């Protein structure tokens, strides 16, 4: 098959879809219909390409993904120790483990916390828990784009988290999405559905890792419904191996006086796209989106961040930092849309990048689309490099150039690392950062220092 066939790469997924449909005869009709509709959309769209006019994918080269083959199957066994070694872990947290897209109750660590319903999405679907039927794929459905369509065509399992109204959880809840160790390249479509009741509050850690050395393709879809006056403190850790593909979609619907804060730590995969959209759908909603991305080798990292102010009196704040080395490529596409009714909106966007070698590419494009007239908005993006005066300052104290650069890179990351509050999570991202910095510096050149 060549890429010239249009739509791109649909054939690769069709056999898997047909056998998936054949195996899921017992699924509820609404789900079957949803899948078929989504498949039809995907078959029409194909994988996104950089074709002219396709603004959202202009900087993202998906050809390596389109050229690869993936098996849709559940993989080998995974142990608790393997997960503890590759993901952040704290016994106190409620941790849900999803292996190759399937919820795994044995590997999960759940404490039966009052007011928290956490477990398999598949079970929640079959038992008609809460509002699953109306919520699933309602924020990230097939209409939107190829990967949510593909994910929805194969929607089956993942994690489900619901908080009763007024439940304020002390300890974080983590969902670990893991692909098992295998030579075979697999595709998985894990989903997470979060329904936080009115006045509830949760710290939610979403972690994506793989135990395999081979290329894996994950297209996770996360949908969160923030009830009135609820608070969601979300962390996203994305660190698959450097031959894998991560096309992630996160959609958040916020009601009145809700507060959604998310911090991303993105260091993994060959091609990774962290696509987050928050909809501020009632007065007094606020969202803060932050992130740190670090790339080396020929990695590609996209942060596709957007917020829609649909109602008056909401606030949004996007602030990302990137550290790029080798021949890597990063995209920060931050968008804020302020609808006509959304007066008294406040929005800010910022993307700061530290470039360590001449071979890197950063496409930073914060953008505002404002249809209301009473709005305070600010945006900016920078790309800088290690400053030679600063380097000399450190060197004059006896720190050699390599160590001085490491101190400066770490210093640049520090403010984002400080965002990761749960101790075990903070320790984890600090450790990964400290391990990554020598890799980044090994691929750096004299940019900025000569």
């Amino acid at each position: 098959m060549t890429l010239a066939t249009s739509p791109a790469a649909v054939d690769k997924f069709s056999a898997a879809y047909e056998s998936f449909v054949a195996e899921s005869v017992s699924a509820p009709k609404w789900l079957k219909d949803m899948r078929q509709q989504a498949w039809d959309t995907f078959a029409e769209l194909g994988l996104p390409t950089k074709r002219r006019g396709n603004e959202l994918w202009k900087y993202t080269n998906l050809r390596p993904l389109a050229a690869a083959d993936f098996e849709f199957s559940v993989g080998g066994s995974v142990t608790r120790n393997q997960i503890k070694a590759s993901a952040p872990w704290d016994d106190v947290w409620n941790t849900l483990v999803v292996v190759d897209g399937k919820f795994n109750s044995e590997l999960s660590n759940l404490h039966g916390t009052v007011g928290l319903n956490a477990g398999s999405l598949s079970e929640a679907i079959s038992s008609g828990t809460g509002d699953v039927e109306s919520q699933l794929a309602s924020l990230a459905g097939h209409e939107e784009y190829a990967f949510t369509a593909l994910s929805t065509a194969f929607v089956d399992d993942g994690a489900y988290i619901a908080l009763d109204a007024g439940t304020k959880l002390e300890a974080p809840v983590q969902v670990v999405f893991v692909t098992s160790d295998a030579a075979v390249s697999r595709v998985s479509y894990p989903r997470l559905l979060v329904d936080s009741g009115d006045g509830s509050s949760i710290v939610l850690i979403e972690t994506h890792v793989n135990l395999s050395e081979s290329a894996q393709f994950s297209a996770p879809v996360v949908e969160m419904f923030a009830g009135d006056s609820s608070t969601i403190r979300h962390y996203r850790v994305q660190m698959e191996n450097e031959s894998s593909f991560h096309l992630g979609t996160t959609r958040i619907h916020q009601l009145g006086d809700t507060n959604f804060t998310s911090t991303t730590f993105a260091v993994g995969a060959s091609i990774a796209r962290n696509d987050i959209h928050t909809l501020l759908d009632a007065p007094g909603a606020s969202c803060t989106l932050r992130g740190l991305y670090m790339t080396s080798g020929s990695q590609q990292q996209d942060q596709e961040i957007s917020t829609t102010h649909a109602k008056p009196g909401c606030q949004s704040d996007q602030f990302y930092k990137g550290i790029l080395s080798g021949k890597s490529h990063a995209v920060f596409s931050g968008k804020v849309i302020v609808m006509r009714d959304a007066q008294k909106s406040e929005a800010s966007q910022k993307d700061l990048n530290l470039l360590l070698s001449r071979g890197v590419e950063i496409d930073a494009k914060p953008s505002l689309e404002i249809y209301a007239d009473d709005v305070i908005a600010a945006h900016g993006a920078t790309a800088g490099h290690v400053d030679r005066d600063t380097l000399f300052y450190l060197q004059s104290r006896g720190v050699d150039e390599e160590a001085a650069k490491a101190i400066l890179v770490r210093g640049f990351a520090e403010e984002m690392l400080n965002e990761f509050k749960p101790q075990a999570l903070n320790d984890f991202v600090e450790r990964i950062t400290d391990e990554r910095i020598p890799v980044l510096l090994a691929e750096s050149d004299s940019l900025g220092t000569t």
Partner: protein
Amino acid sequence: MLEIKNLHASVLDIENSEILKGINLSLGKGEVHAIMGPNGSGKSTLANVLMGRPDYEVTDGEVTLEGESILELRADQRAHLGMFLAFQYPAEIPGVRPWQFLKAALDSKAESRGEDKMSVRNFSKLFDEKVEAVGINPTLVKRSLNEGFSGGEKKRNEMLQLEVLQPTLAILDETDSGLDVDALRIVAEGVNSMRSPERSFIVVTHYQRLLNYITPDVVHILVKGQIVKTGGPELALEVEKNGYKEYLDAVGANA
């Protein structure tokens, strides 16, 4: 301790940019030399060239520290030999705490000498002592290095580093600029308390006022990249009274 012979230096990669035009200076162990001069005389360049700033190129001459040539050494190697430069404009470094940075500096020095690194506990104790001695606000040193520090706080922070690193040759590049009298006194007290038969200082300054608090053994007047006069502490007072005009006239420069 330090011998400077016929030192010529230019701005790197810029033709006809010679700033230092044959400096000769001999600094003995335990001595404090002041280098005074008008703006643009090359004082700061001399301080930076001695420390090995890569923006300058030495085109002629020799500099030896305890008999060893240092011109081929990088700044960090010079620091390991005991040299220190207190900056006129210390860099602001976001996300880097003074504690962390000074520990890295000491570790690096220990490593270069084949010595054991100081334990975190011992270093913390030393650091806290020095913070108190220098009179720097302890909450300040928990913040990013120099970020949002006032001019005076930055200079105190330079003194803190001086105290922690304990160099054998400290060069102060206009450390007095931008300081009020109280801060000036603190800098001077820092220097004075560190004066010892084993430690030498080069104090670069435009004005005489710092020298009210730090009495130098020798004063050099630097004009247009050359030392035009060398004398005792009284030379500084003379400059305070008469300015640099007579020296500028002597080398044919416009005052």
